[in-house]
């Protein structure tokens, strides 16, 4: 569809774009990325025929754009520039109708039925038809941008060039606009070439990305290849981190503010951070948000949390929506659910066991509440009927150190293994199978790290972190189970 070959050019005496080559196939959404001044807009202006180029060639349907007349080009290609000037009070309909200019012939062109239909159609598609008699100057930025998109679409182009189309748009308009464009590329085989400022939006919507650096092509590939941490860091000269999108297989880039990486006074989390606000829960409030990975009722998964609540509920606690009930409980006790990891247990909270273990350059604080009333042997668990009852072994680990994602997962593995060992050594039996149990049916685990101080890359069983976790979780679990058994016996 569009073929750019060794394109070089720019403004007088200065080549902003240097030897850029790429191809865009029909029906693709092609994104152009690059830091400020990398030549994105200049490149787009050369593609659209607005700026002449000194070297190279731009072929549109295998024909040089220099061979197209202004009108011919406008029938093939429409452009939505970043800034649109509107000095006079044209109505939306008049504005959109101007897009038909290239399709009309002669000096006193007649407005045909077909022209009218196309204008009505594109106004409907972009959702501006309800403002058609409004003055464009009365519209909001997002509405106006859609009017100009309708104007460009009224040209019935085969290829649409856009310069940061979502600039100045609200979140919802950004999404609507890009959904619309994406729909056109798949449904109508419209080819879209767009400059993006926002790497994450580009990653979400584009089929291919071209990364410009100082007017040259850095890479032209699929989003996952283009958006590599190292590459983006060096091109944009800034700290960013790559992470997956939660729902869509598209990489996302997050910025790392300088101030956060500066203030890194290590903090040790220990029992002094317990807060006692009510009898039916144990709560710990960290002075800083901690990086967490957990399986709590509230705040599960990975995230950043500052408050940790282990709540006692009666054995016959049964609620159709325990998550909502837990959130209400947290709110009622003055905790902010968004920054809290909340767990439940039927165990008496007095039987909690906790321990601070100091290693060479880090420390770990372990908190365990355990009861083995509904202990299960995981290897034979199919013999149990499915029923959610409040967790009975809740393990918390607070690491004063900086953990990698890998270390988080290994910590959970190590802690689980230590727990299983404790169960075995105390001969806790699964009541149904009669074998040694590996845990209970609803155990929860939390690993939280200050992300300050020592770098802890691994947490396998023989690594320094793994060793302390293994030792601490084992001893705390054993102690907690013993306390619990003591209570039942007496």
């Amino acid at each position, binding site marked *: 569809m569009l073929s750019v070959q060794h394109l070089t050019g720019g403004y007088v005496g200065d080549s902003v774009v240097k030897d850029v080559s790429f191809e865009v196939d029909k029906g693709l959404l092609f994104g152009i990325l690059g830091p400020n001044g990398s030549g994105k807009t200049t490149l787009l202006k050369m593609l659209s025929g*607005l700026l002449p180029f000194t070297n190279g060639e731009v072929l549109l349907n295998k024909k040089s754009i220099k061979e197209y007349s202004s009108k*011919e080009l406008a029938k093939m290609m429409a452009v939505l520039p970043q800034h649109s000037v509107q000095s006079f*009070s044209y*109505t939306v309909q008049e504005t959109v109708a*101007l*897009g038909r*200019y290239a399709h009309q012939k002669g*000096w006193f062109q007649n407005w045909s039925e077909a022209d009218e239909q196309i204008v009505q159609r594109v106004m409907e598609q972009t959702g501006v038809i309800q403002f058609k*008699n409004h003055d464009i100057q009365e519209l909001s930025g997002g509405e106006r941008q859609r009017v100009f998109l309708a104007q*460009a679409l009224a040209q019935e182009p085969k290829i649409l060039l856009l310069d940061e189309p979502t600039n100045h748009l609200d979140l919802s308009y950004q999404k609507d606009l890009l959904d619309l464009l994406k729909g056109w590329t798949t449904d109508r085989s419209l080819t879209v070439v767009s400059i993006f400022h926002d790497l994450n939006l580009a990653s979400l919507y584009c089929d291919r990305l071209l990364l410009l650096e100082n007017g040259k092509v850095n890479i032209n590939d699929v989003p996952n290849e283009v958006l590599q941490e190292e590459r983006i860091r060096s091109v944009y000269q800034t700290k960013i981190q790559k992470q997956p999108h939660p729902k869509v297989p598209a990489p996302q880039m997050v910025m790392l503010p300088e101030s956060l990486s500066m203030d890194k006074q290590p903090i040790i989390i220990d029992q002094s951070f317990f807060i006692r606000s009510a009898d039916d829960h144990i709560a710990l409030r960290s002075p800083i948000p901690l990086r967490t990975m957990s399986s709590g009722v509230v705040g599960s998964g990975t995230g950043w949390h500052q408050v940790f609540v282990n709540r006692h509920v009666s054995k016959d606690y049964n609620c159709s929506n325990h998550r909502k009930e837990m959130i209400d409980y947290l709110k009622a006790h003055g905790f902010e659910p968004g920054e809290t990891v909340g767990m439940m247990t039927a165990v008496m909270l007095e039987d909690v066991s906790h321990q601070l273990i100091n290693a060479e350059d880090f420390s770990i604080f372990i908190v365990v509440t355990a009861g083995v009333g509904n202990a299960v042997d995981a290897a034979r668990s199919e013999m149990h009927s499915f029923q959610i009852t409040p967790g009975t072994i809740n393990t918390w680990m607070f690491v004063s150190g900086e953990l990698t994602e890998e270390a988080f997962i290994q910590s959970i593995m190590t802690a689980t293994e230590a727990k299983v060992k404790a169960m075995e050594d105390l001969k806790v039996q699964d009541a149904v199978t009669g074998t040694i149990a590996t845990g209970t049916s609803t155990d929860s685990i939390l690993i939280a790290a200050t992300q300050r101080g020592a770098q802890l890359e691994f947490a396998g069983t023989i690594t320094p972190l793994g060793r302390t976790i293994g030792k601490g979780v084992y001893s705390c679990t054993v102690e907690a189970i013993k306390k619990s058994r003591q209570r039942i016996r007496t």
Partner: protein
Amino acid sequence: MQKLFIQTNLNNKVVAYITASLFLVIAMLLGISIGTVSVPVLDIIKIIGAKIFRISINETIDPMYTNIVLNIRLPRVVLAGLVGASLAIAGAAFQGLLRNPLADPYTLGVSSGASVGAVLTLFFGISIPFAGLFTLPLMSILFSFITIFIVLMFARKVERTMKVETIILTGIIFSSFLGSLISLMISLTGEELRQIIGWLLGSVSMRGWAYINIILPFFILGSLLLLVNSRELNAMSFGEEKAQYMGVNVQKRKMMVLIAGSILTGAAVAVSGTIGFVGLVIPHLARLLWGPDHKHLLPLSILVGAGFLILADLAARTVISPTELPIGVITALIGAPVFGVILMKRRTERRG
């Protein structure tokens, strides 16, 4: 529903043209009728009708009336109308091109150029062979041409793509420079001073049919050039870049509009001197009343501009009769407050 919209839209336009035409006809009749000798409107129609259709009227009409109408007032009214129409349509076109509702033909320095040409002619007593009386207007047109081309060349030198901002700035630079040239010549001149100042303030009196013959071909040429570019002007009022993307050959069309505008302004300045505010207020008024679509804005500006200058001239010669005020004074006196009122009204009621 859609049909209805087009229908009402069309009806609105028809009403607009009828209103503007009526305004012009009434202005003309008033302009011809009122004066030291009052001529009844019915007689005016008969006299002009007889002249046009070359039929003799049975009733006797005072030959003095016929003389006043055909030789004094009609040429004056027609000239005022043509000058007003030229300035208004040129103003509308320049405003569209420069995307500035407050721009006018003078922004480009065209009128200053024309004035320099005229003042030079008066100052040095230049006479083009065989041109005789027409030396002054011809020189004005010539100088407006020269000015616009120098302005454009200069702008192109400054910036190859000739952005509108560059052109406006260049126009302002040239206006100031040429304005001081005129002041210099006025300071140096002796007894010709009155004539130059009188001419600078603008007037359409005592020009006769000869001046109409001078301005008419330029008016027709310039207006036609602009009318065929009305859709391009619509596109260019969204920015030259945008217009290019819509398929407008911007370089060529911009040049056509600028040339047409300078022909109109140059010719108007030549026959009547510098009359301000018409090119600024009339297109603005027409745009507020009937919308910014140049397809209708340009012809409507012609009609309203013509009527407006005829009325302004009528006021100029009747307010402190028998002494005549410079017409530029009247246009500014009427134009400025009207402009202010329009601006205020625009805030409260918008068309929809």
